[in-house]
């Protein structure tokens, strides 16, 4: 019982720390990166929710894009407020996912994987080609105004004379991430969530016990798409634009990487994966062209040597740490004292 209370307090401290970050991180570049992390983590969580049922969706980038487009349209054409449009973006994406899922969740495995990608491509091409007057063609929807929210008598604008209010965007993204984490956590901890994991192991067995497998998969898929849509909506405000480039296959691969590298075993996996890969992605900007090589290599290495993802790494206990220190010091004393041609195995 004590451990549980301790864990909750620790989590709350983390939460407070996370929300206080904009106060002491003044470099807007990094604040922006953390905002991107929050958006990526939401996408990763949505995808993770779908993947734990045993279905891999390769088209989540499309739902993110649709969320962005819907939110942008509701904002620009209908003049609706921030929270309404974000919610609308999510709902539209969720409904689209519901329709797609209804047609296709009868097939499983590789067929569903390819179908989900096919659907994403269709959506992408459509967004580029139809209603260019409001959808903007290949350029997408531009000049999305920075929103303003009113809390009581306080008018918070997401833009100031010096530029977009990065802190506000950060808080918005983080708040949505926290809500997403709670949502996904509740689902996976519930009976419904356990049934989902059962379905992943044997859908026939689940069905024989009275579980409506199709409906479970459909609902989960729609929720995952909803989350992706909300993330897309936030991003569309953050970038003040949305384009069909968001629906490129590379982004779907990125999303899968966050989930896989982080590990599928628990809810922390996609979050860690999104964090590590987003940060590494930014750090590697310096290396520019070599970035995909590093990302690709990371993916390969994780798959070959750590298939459970980063989350499956066990934090070393004190005695193990001591052991590692001992070995390291022995190795160092060898190389500094001995001749380089004399390689001995340290035991």
């Amino acid at each position: 019982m004590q451990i549980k209370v301790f864990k909750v307090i620790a989590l709350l401290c983390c939460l407070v720390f996370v929300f206080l970050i904009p106060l002491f991180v003044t470099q807007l570049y990094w604040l922006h990166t953390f905002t991107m992390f929050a958006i990526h983590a939401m996408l990763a969580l949505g995808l993770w929710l779908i993947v734990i049922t045993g279905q891999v969706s390769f088209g989540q980038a499309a739902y993110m894009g649709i969320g962005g487009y819907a939110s942008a349209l509701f904002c620009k054409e209908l003049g609706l407020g921030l929270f309404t449009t974000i919610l609308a973006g999510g709902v539209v994406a969720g409904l689209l996912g519901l329709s797609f899922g209804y047609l296709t969740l009868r097939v499983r495995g590789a067929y569903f994987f390819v179908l989900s990608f096919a659907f994403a491509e269709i959506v992408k091409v459509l967004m580029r080609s139809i209603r260019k007057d409001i959808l903007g063609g290949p350029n997408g929807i531009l000049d999305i105004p920075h929103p303003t929210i009113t809390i009581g008598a306080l008018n918070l604008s997401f833009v100031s004379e010096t530029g977009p209010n990065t802190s506000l965007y950060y808080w918005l993204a983080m708040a949505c991430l926290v809500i997403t984490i709670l949502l996904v956590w509740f689902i996976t901890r519930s009976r419904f969530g356990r049934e989902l994991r059962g379905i992943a192991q044997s859908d026939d067995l689940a069905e024989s016990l009275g579980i409506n497998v199709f409906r479970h998969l459909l609902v989960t898929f729609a929720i995952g798409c909803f989350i992706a849509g909300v993330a897309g909506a936030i991003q569309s405000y953050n970038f003040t634009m949305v384009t069909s480039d968001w629906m490129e296959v590379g982004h779907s691969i990125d999303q899968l990487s966050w989930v896989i590298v982080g590990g599928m075993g628990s809810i922390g996996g996609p979050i860690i994966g999104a964090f590590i890969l987003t940060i590494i992605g930014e750090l590697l900007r310096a290396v520019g062209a070599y970035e995909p090589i590093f990302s690709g290599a990371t993916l390969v290495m994780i798959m070959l040597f750590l298939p459970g993802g980063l989350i499956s790494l066990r934090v070393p206990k004190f005695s193990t740490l001591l052991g590692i220190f001992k070995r390291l010091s022995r190795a160092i004393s060898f190389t500094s004292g001995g001749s380089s041609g004399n390689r001995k195995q340290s035991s």
Partner: protein
Amino acid sequence: MGIVSNLLEVKGLVKNFGGLMAVDNVDFYIEEGEFLGLVGPNGAGKTTAFNLVSGFLRPTEGKIIFNGRNLVGLKPHKIASMGIIRTFQASTLFGNFTVGENLDLSLHLKARQKNSEDNSLFINELLDFFQLSMWKDSLGYDLPYGHQRMLGVAMAMAAEPKLLMLDEPLTGMDPKECMDMIRLLSTINKQGTTVLMIEHHVSEILESVGRIIVLSNGKKIADGLPKDVVQNKEVEEAYLGREEESIA
């Protein structure tokens, strides 16, 4: 015309797999409270018949009537909710879950009606009955084979079926485990659950079942008391025609 209608009635059941008649015009019925054995050599159509009744396959023709309702066209989970629970030969359990969690999942149909305390009590009763209590927190994958199959039956019972359909529950078990299983199944049956059991090795079940149906090449070739079926010439031929089988 009977005064008491049967629990399950199958009429004119046909399943045609693009030319291959897996089930060829089969009729049978089960009365409430019976312990019925479904036997036959490999490829006779037993599992196909199971899949047809439980909704995992759609019949080409025929009627399946359970408690007065036609099951044809219903999805498996709907049929399960009506009271028919079946087991599988492969995938008997959720390997990545513990035994307790497996049983908890199996309460899907009943969970909403009970509160969590009742659920826990019920699960413990089941564990006791199937002698799995000491394995409660072990992962399904870690269970010895015989216990895995026991768990499969326990999970089916957790759903409190009216008709329990078992697909070769004795496969791969040693003689002692077979006896334990049969004893348990008899007890379950005497407590009121109707049981339909596919079994390959007929000798083990001859004393426990009340009636045997024999399928061969998709057709029903015998239906009656164990003692009569065993002496049936056609049944003997069906089994002896395949060298590796024997009926008793």
